[in-house]
């Protein structure tokens, strides 16, 4: 399959969505029925890529997670830019605690270097790091996108708090009027904020460890809505993998019970993961072999997903951030009903 090479053009139809199983295409709203609970991620996307100088060399810092005050966790990239695939870019220099990177409007002092992944750093800036990012940062760019992405390109229609470092892209499938029509037909809508993390670090070993622990906040109103839906045996649908990770991560820490508040999750869903909360998921189309495919194995056997890939290919679906989507329903498993 080919990747979508840029944001959807003005007036273009929304992403195409294939149901799995069923393998038929429907509009976003037509997969949901009265009584369903749709949970969405309202994170806005940070300009998470910042250029810095260190001993004359031009380097790129990418925020790994939303910063806390002046402190940011970053991945360091060597020279080159987004026109090169991250894995083809030269390795960055090895920095030590105390080293200082010069940004345009601030300095970043290295306070910690990950002993396992040397390009994973903690830095302290002269000013609140979110403020520095909005003063001089750019959205994370992708080699397959034709023109540089602007902040406007990477905001979903539900963007609120700037927590995501890459767009929670499943939300591109929806819109304010689509959610209104869903409410009108009896679908409940609840929110959470999940700090969608980096998709690529330029280091194969570190990429294999993704996603790193990600911050999320679950409001009490959403916990209540989920409890009601569960008690009544209604479907709980995640708009995007970030929502699924937050809900399942939260349920895992509470032994099945959800708790409102701000937490981190390092949950990696896979074939062996029981689904405690989510009954279906809207998600982007990805090839087999990427971590995303593994995540969806929590919902369907690999054979179904392979068939969905074939079917998507046959229909000319596009992959990646601005591409098309799937609506994947979890296979009913006896163990989960217990």
């Amino acid at each position, binding site marked *: 399959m080919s990747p979508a090479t840029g944001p959807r053009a003005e007036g273009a139809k929304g992403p195409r969505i294939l149901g799995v199983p069923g393998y038929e295409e429907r509009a976003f709203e037509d997969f949901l029925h009265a009584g369903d609970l749709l949970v969405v991620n*309202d994170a806005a996307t940070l300009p998470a890529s910042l250029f810095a100088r260190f001993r004359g060399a031009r380097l790129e810092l990418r925020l790994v997670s939303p910063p806390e005050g002046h402190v940011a966790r970053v991945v360091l990239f060597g020279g080159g830019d987004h026109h090169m695939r991250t894995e083809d870019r030269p390795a960055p220099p090895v920095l030590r605690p105390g080293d200082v990177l010069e940004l345009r409007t601030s300095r970043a002092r290295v306070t910690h270097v990950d002993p396992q992944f040397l390009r994973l750093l903690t830095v302290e800036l002269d000013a609140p790091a979110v403020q520095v990012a909005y003063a001089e940062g750019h959205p994370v760019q992708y080699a397959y996108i034709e023109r540089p992405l602007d902040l406007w390109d990477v905001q979903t229609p539900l963007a609120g708090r700037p927590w995501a470092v890459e767009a929670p892209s499943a939300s591109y499938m929806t819109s304010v009027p689509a959610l209104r029509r869903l409410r009108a037909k009896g679908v409940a809508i609840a929110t959470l904020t999940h700090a969608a993390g980096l998709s690529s670090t330029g280091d194969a070993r570190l990429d294999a460890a993704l996603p790193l622990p990600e911050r999320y906040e679950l409001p009490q109103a959403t916990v209540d809505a989920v409890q009601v839906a569960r008690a009544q045996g209604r479907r709980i649908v995640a708009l995007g993998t970030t929502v699924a990770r937050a809900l399942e991560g939260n349920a895992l820490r509470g032994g099945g019970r959800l708790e409102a508040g701000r937490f981190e999750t390092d949950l990696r869903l896979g074939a062996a993961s029981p689904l405690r909360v989510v009954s279906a998921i809207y998600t982007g189309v990805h090839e087999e072999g990427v971590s995303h495919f593994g995540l969806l194995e929590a919902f369907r056997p690999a054979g179904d997903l392979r068939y969905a890939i074939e079917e998507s290919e046959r229909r000319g679906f596009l992959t990646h951030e601005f591409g098309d989507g799937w609506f994947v329903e979890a296979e009913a498993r006896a163990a989960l009903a217990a």
Partner: protein
Amino acid sequence: MKRVLITGGSRGLGLSLARSFGVREAKVVVVARDAKRLDAAVRGLRKEGLDVHGIAFDVGNKKDIHRIAAMAEELAGPIDTLVHNASTLGPLPMPELSSLSCEAFQAVLETNLLGPFRLTKALLGSMTLRPESSPSVVFVSSDAATSAYPGWGAYGVSKAAADHLMRSFAAEVPEVRFLSVDPGEMDTAMHRDAMPDADPATLARPDAVAEAIVAMVLPKAATGSRRVALGEA
């Protein structure tokens, strides 16, 4: 607790609105172009014990819109009240349309019309997800939106269009309340720029107008309505 974003908040009506919302325990974020003046204004309000933050951006610049929306949400949490107060008169003294450059007209529309459209659009999704916070968007309008005066062409057009933008949003988005408020003639720097010879004693105080506007916004004024705020002269 309300979480309020006010554009053009470093002086005049915007500053008064920040205070009026602030004393009602709202978290307030004000945006203005002039970082120094904004900083002084915010420091003053904080000394009064108010929860106010300032962010220096230009509402008339499309590139600043998501910076404004995101920084406001970062500093105050999900914004439920957006006040489009920033506006520009264009070149001074205000020329007749025949003498106004096309670029100057366009710049007035960027700040007074397109800025509010873009910023509303940027915050709308987040607002519609929280109907329990009674989200509101307020457009500060003008008498020039309904009456035509020589020299006020670009400004008047921008305000008339912004009023209609407000009505159009109200027709489309029932989850959010949209209002436009004509503050009347006030004793502000903008009024002095437009009409240097006006007698300040005949003009309303922005503090009084702000109180009147906040009193309209906090209770349930009907969405899509245009109102006149009469501050005492």
